[in-house]
């Protein structure tokens, strides 16, 4: 009796998994074996290991790393301070609300803010530095990416901090630890799960953001995502695009393993 009922629910769900999870990944692997003319070849993989693509991959990695680190540096104190405020839930909601706004609108806003006559240059003018080229630089790319990812970093860290029993902090202080020692030896190790979860949600998308690179960095920064989009939608070289996608998937798996996979607490 039970088995029959289980089968009824499983049929559509497993069908969904096969069609939209297993098949697409398999197809990416399959397409990576064909060149532009549709010939079966390993040439795409050979091309991926040429200096052009290797440099792009390393660059993409480097930018994603910078974005993740800056997000962490800004988000950790933010999360910590939110747990210390009186209206925690309200502050958290306020910090998270911008993440619900369409990402493209935020990017578009920065086109205005960072423009030659925008607010940022107005401020620079005011403090005497003068107008600079901000848009279409590495700085603008990293700033906007960090801006977009801060809420995703704050949330898991906040959850980890909330789960920390306050008595541990009291104990640490009673035993004579300074504020810094308490942070380094007690708070940080116990919230590492949240930090890892946060890095995971930031690093993987940071490798693949292509609209930000197009709109804000003016094609100066080429990430793996930009390259995939370029190959699929512009040059129509699906084989090479799929090959890059294969490597992006591999990196994703690697990062999931390194940051503790799906068992991290903040990301449940």
């Amino acid at each position, binding site marked *: 009796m039970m088995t029959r009922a289980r089968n009824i629910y499983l049929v559509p769900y497993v069908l969904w998994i096969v069609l939209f999870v297993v098949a697409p990944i398999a197809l990416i692997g399959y397409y990576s074996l064909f060149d532009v003319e549709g010939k079966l070849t390993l040439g795409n993989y050979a091309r991926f290991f040429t200096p052009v693509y290797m440099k792009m991959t390393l660059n993409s990695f480097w930018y994603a790393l910078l974005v993740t680190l800056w997000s962490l540096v800004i988000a950790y104190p933010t999360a910590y301070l939110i747990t210390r405020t009186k209206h925690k839930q309200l502050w958290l909601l306020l910090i998270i609300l911008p993440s619900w706004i369409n*990402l493209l609108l935020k990017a578009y806003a920065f086109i205005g803010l960072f423009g030659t006559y925008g607010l940022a240059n107005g401020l620079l003018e005011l403090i005497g530095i003068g107008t600079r080229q901000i848009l279409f630089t590495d700085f603008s790319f990293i700033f906007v990416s960090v801006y977009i990812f801060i809420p995703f970093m704050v949330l898991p860290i906040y959850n980890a901090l909330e789960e920390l029993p306050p008595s541990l902090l009291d104990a640490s202080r009673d035993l004579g630890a300074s504020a810094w020692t308490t942070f380094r030896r007690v708070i940080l190790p116990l919230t590492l799960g949240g930090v890892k979860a946060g890095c995971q949600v930031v690093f993987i998308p940071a490798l693949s953001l292509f*609209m930000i690179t197009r709109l804000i960095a003016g094609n100066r920064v080429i990430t793996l995502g930009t390259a995939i989009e370029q190959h699929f939608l512009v040059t129509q070289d699906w084989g090479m695009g799929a090959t890059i996608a294969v490597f992006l998937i591999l990196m*994703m798996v690697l990062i999931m393993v390194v940051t503790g996979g*799906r068992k991290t607490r903040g990301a449940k």
Partner: protein
Amino acid sequence: MKRQLNWGRLYLVAVFIVLYSPIMYLTYYSFNSGGTMREFESFSLEWYGEVFSDTRLLIIVLNTLVIALLASLISTVLGIVGALAIRHVRQLRSKQALLSLNNVLIVSPDVIIGASFLILFTMAGVQLGFNSVLISHVAFSVPIVVLMVLPKLEEMSPTLIDAARDLGASRWQVLTKVTLPFIKPGIFAGFFMAFTYSLDDFAVTFFVTGNGFSTLSVEIYSRARHGVSLSINALSTLLFLFTALLVVGYYFISQKSGNKPTNAEVAP
């Protein structure tokens, strides 16, 4: 201690200002009668008028809403079925496997999902346009609904179902009279999440949208690539208000059911 708290408050306020300044900036200039985001000439509702008289844009807004509503409805049904399927699997290992497969689409970068779905639709012969966008939105919303519904299902005591069966309820009655009412908060949360995911999505849609059909995100992207136009500002102000309403509605529901915000709820 008190001074430290003040510094903390200052830091939070600074983060808050940076997070909101782009949105405020867009809103401010949406009332500018001049055509740029540089100097504010005088207050005007001209750009709002332009948004509402732009038939092409209104059709795109309508498209986006229809896609979001249909996609979230279909994915909610599929997601409930999926959660029930996972719940009914007895073997721990198969359950873990199903959950991992479920989460693949949540952690995958949008570019990978978009590219692989593009290959899938091309091979399956699905015409790119309304159908392909709808199918992919359903596909990537299902796992989120599953994640929202499953905890509620796990919370439900099995004795409740046994009691209903003892009292002579049919399997269908157990589902509609006992299970579904119990997991209703999870269902609503899942529906809301799916709805906002669909509204917000850019990258996946961008890959599978083809030529004739466009959603709001894709339209904003192509307009933003041509530079600043204040009707986008007006549009984004309207969208911001709409999003804020949705979020408040969602939080109202999740507060009622006592859920803690998790990362799945904010991931783009």
